[in-house]
């Protein structure tokens, strides 16, 4: 107990060191991003780097206060904190200020606060509190429902604020739940679903269904049927494929073909007397049908549910630009072909026109952002252009360069050395958090630790992935680095509660 008097005795200095490094990198990067010759004083409060400094100082104060509090405070008040923040989220929907189309801000004079940021640590607290209760096991259906509800309430409220990016971060809790016993299959299925989604967009639903079908047939036949059936179905599928590639059959025929094969297997399965456990076969066919439906629905969801700007964010990544350029070249070539009739040419011409328009939209809209972001990072080279020498960021080619695209400034001015250093810092932070979380004797503390790592990780993967062109443009901040008081404070609170909990590791067992 005597150690509690000195709050610095048992805290993890490695995490705090990494935290300070990231905050400092963020501050000078913001300075570089908005730097211009007229306002070059780094403490100028009218500029973003000046106000960021104020946020940083306040963040340190907040961190200090958290370290002063007793850890019991957080375990006892986890649910009330969660409840209050839910109320605030509802309030912001009713009384909030609209910025960039999202109603997620409270305005107090000049200061804007984004409650969605603070909802994150509250949700982690609540989840940790619930899952650490005695006799709670995640295998149970009821536990899953309640845990999902704890996550879903703030997520849905934030979605209603029209802040899709922040909503997506709640997917991070799948890591926490997995650690606490959620079936690995769900994690696997989630990854698979994302993979199939992307592949479907690249190759089209038809080929994906066909491909899925072949995989299914092979797996299913190999595990459930005898060798003869396997060989037969394999040969049938391959010959169908070969036939298809040589004679360029229309999509509808392919569907007919698939339906035919599906039907014959179906018949075989129910009529085969050798097969005893028919239920599992029906299940297999059911899975196949569901996955076909999923693949088919991707096309539908993509084209009908997603908005235009959301679609382009994804298509840009999938090489839509190059595809369009190639298609335009093809059509232009066709236009010169004499063999086409006047009507055919007219069709080609209108097609060409729409393609050219969408290309233009792509290149000027989200395509532009991604491209400029890549140029900024790519042009940094190994050592970068030097501090304050980044032309891409200085001359405003990169959008949102002090908030969501702050990584561009690091990449351009500090090069590969800078970017890899930042990535290594984050890696060290995540692994350190996991390492410490596993040392906790208290379940609450461990779960909370995993929550911190998960939340930070999802921000890391989405934000950096976006700037280097691996993930669609989703506007969420890079923890501790991006400009913005709300995000800095909320991440600081998130992290320092964990540091506080960890510092009491030896004395308490919750």
């Amino acid at each position, binding site marked *: 107990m005597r150690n509690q008097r000195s709050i610095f005795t048992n805290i993890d200095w490695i995490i705090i060191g990494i935290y300070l490094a990231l905050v400092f990198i963020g501050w000078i990067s913001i300075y570089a991003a908005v730097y211009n010759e007229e306002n070059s004083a780094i403490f100028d409060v009218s500029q973003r780097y000046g106000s960021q400094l104020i946020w940083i100082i306040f963040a340190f104060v907040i961190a200090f206060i958290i370290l002063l509090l007793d850890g019991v405070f957080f375990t006892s008040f986890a649910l009330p904190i969660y409840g209050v923040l839910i109320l605030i989220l509802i309030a912001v929907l009713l009384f909030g200020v609209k910025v960039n189309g999202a109603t997620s801000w409270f305005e107090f004079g000049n200061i804007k606060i984004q409650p969605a940021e603070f909802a994150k640590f509250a949700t982690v607290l609540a989840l940790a509190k619930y899952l650490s209760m005695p006799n709670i096991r995640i295998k149970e259906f009821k536990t899953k429902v309640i845990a999902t509800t704890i996550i879903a309430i703030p997520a849905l409220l934030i979605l209603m604020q029209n802040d899709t990016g922040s909503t997506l971060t709640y997917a991070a809790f799948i890591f926490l739940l997995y*650690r606490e016993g959620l079936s690995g299959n769900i994690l696997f299925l989630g990854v698979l679903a994302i993979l199939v989604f992307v592949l479907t967009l690249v190759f089209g639903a038809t080929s994906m269904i066909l491909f899925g079908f072949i995989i299914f047939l092979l797996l299913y036949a190999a595990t459930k049927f005898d060798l003869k059936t396997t060989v037969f179905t394999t040969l049938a599928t391959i010959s169908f494929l070969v036939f298809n590639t040589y004679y360029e059959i229309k999509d509808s025929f392919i569907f007919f073909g698939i339906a035919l094969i599906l039907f014959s297997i179906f018949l075989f399965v129910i009529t085969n007397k050798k097969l005893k456990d028919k239920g599992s076969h029906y299940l297999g066919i059911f899975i196949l049908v569901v996955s076909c439906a999923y693949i088919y629905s991707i096309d539908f969801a993509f084209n009908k549910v997603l908005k235009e700007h959301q679609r382009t964010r994804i298509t840009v990544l999938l090489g839509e630009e190059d595809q369009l350029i190639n298609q335009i070249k093809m059509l232009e070539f066709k236009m010169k072909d004499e063999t086409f009739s006047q009507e055919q040419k007219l069709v080609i011409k209108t097609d060409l026109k729409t393609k050219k328009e969408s290309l233009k939209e792509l290149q000027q809209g989200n395509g532009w952002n991604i491209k400029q972001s890549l*140029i900024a990072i*790519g042009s940094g080279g190994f050592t970068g252009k030097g501090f304050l020498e980044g032309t891409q960021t*200085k001359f405003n080619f990169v959008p949102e360069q002090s908030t969501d695209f702050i990584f561009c400034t690091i990449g351009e001015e500090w090069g590969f050395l800078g970017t890899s250093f930042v*990535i290594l810092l984050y890696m060290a932070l995540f692994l350190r958090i*996991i390492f410490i979380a596993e040392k906790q004797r208290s379940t609450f503390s461990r779960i909370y630790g995993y929550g911190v790592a998960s939340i930070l990780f999802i921000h890391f993967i989405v934000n950096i992935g976006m700037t280097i062109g691996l993930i669609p443009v989703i506007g969420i901040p890079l923890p501790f680095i991006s400009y913005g008081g709300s995000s800095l404070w909320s991440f600081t609170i998130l992290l320092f509660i964990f540091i506080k909990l960890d510092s009491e590791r030896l004395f308490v067992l919750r």
Partner: protein
Amino acid sequence: MNNFTNRKFIIGAIFLFVGLIFIIRLINIQLINNKYKLDSDSNVLRTITKYPARGLVYDRNGELLVYNEAAYDLMLIPKQLKEIDTNEFCKLFEITKAEFIERLTKIKKYSTYKPSVFEKEISTESYANIQDQLYKFPGFFVQLRTLRSYQNKNAAHILGYISEVTPAIIEKDNYYKSGDYIGKSGVELAYEELLRGKRGIKKVLVDVHNREKGSYLNGKEDTLSISGERLQISLDITLQTYGELLMQNKIGSIVAIEPSTGEILCLVSSPSYNPNMLVGRAVRKNYPVLSRDSLNPLFNRATMAQYPPGSIFKTIQALIGMQEGVINEKSGFSCIKSLVGCHNHPTATDVASSIKMSCNPYYFQVFKKIIQQNKAKSIYKDSEIGLAEWNKRVKKFGFGGTLQTDIPGVKNGLVPGVEFYNKWYGEGRWAFSTIFSLSIGQGELGVIPIQMANLAAIIANRGYYYQPHILKEIDDKPSIPLIFKQKNYVDIEAKYFEPIIEGMYGVVQEAGGTARRAKINGIEVCGKTGTAQNPHGEDHSVFIAFAPKDNPKIAIAVYVENAGFGGTWAAPIASLMMEKYLTDSISDKIKEQRILEANLMNVIPKK
């Protein structure tokens, strides 16, 4: 405590895996792929060309002939174009709305964010009008350019003109870029590389809105533009102007050369045009008019028109005859009009008098002696040997394409040789009797006025010439090419020139000479008339001369198309020119008046 502790490894592995993918991706875009570096440069770097001022051109007395005037190109960046009052704009620039839309679409097609020329070469006066209105039209701005300007309305042919480079030129010579100007004729073309100077570049950084943000690397890679060299040409603009005045309402040319240097003093081709007509925007309007003109004012007759020389060629025949030894200065031939037509005159008893009286039968016989020297038994073979020798000697005089002047586009002319007649008549099917017209400068001979003037210079120099040239000094340094400083001997001994000069002196100064009108009080003029028969109409009037007789200062050739006898028109014009050059005044105002008033444009052709 629970069964899932090992899952920390899986979660850790996932984190590390993502970090690894990011690092690999960063290695790819930051270290391997070079494309982004180039894209970044092209984003922010704009290279601005700094155009040098084209070199100025002065005449031999230091009078400015060609200079540059400021003009403004109206540029447009379509992306910066905001809502503007199109009506007001169109009114200000005097264009129609349809034209405005047409230009805008064309520019937009090229690029929406790069500047394009909307209106070219707005004069300084027009710019003053629009300058204070321009702020109303964001997206438009002006760029300073220079326009060639010609001080005088004379000497168009010799000075030449410049025009914008065509894609074909850009492809051939990588110095030129779209929008550059290049000399197209005359001095502008001949000394293009001296006059054009050296372009400079300035690299600037621009931001995303294409606004200038300062210099690149503090201007380390910028270069200054270097103005073109200052050229002094040998032309005497006063003489040139006077020559053009005399040649008004006449078709033909005057070429004057300083014999002691080969410098061209004037090069008149009539009709001519005002060089300022082919400057800037006016070209589009004026060029078609000029090129469609039936009198062909763009055609430089002094360097490109090929004429029969007529009797002035007798001087060469006599010189070759004496050098070959087939005649001597005392040789006399009677005027047998049955050989070739002639006018009535006393018998020419020596070379000098034959020149003075321009006796045709005399030169029929001289030429016969040159061609048929009995070196072969067959008269055909004999003629071939003779003609070959003659051809070689004539070409020494700068005829038939042997002149190496710096004026671009000088035609070769034609001195027929053995091959020519073999092709024409067949080998062994022609002899002296076939080609005797050459003796009096007719027949197949084709001579260019500048070559005639050079002939006058050769006689004035008694046997040599300098390549006729227009360049005098480059940038105040006497650095003309060596080729213009070398004497070119015609391989005729100087003593043989004396009887010729005596005859030419007689032509002008003595009773019975064919060009008494060329006399100038107080100056000994030597000349030779020519009346070139012209199958298409009235004879051409020809005269070559030099003055003074000793230590000549000017050699001249005048060719007036369809004007008849050489002594009537060409000779007085030549004398006025020489007097103007030598004394800077005209004593015989009646002679001058007669020439100025003469209109020889519509002479009824003789057939």
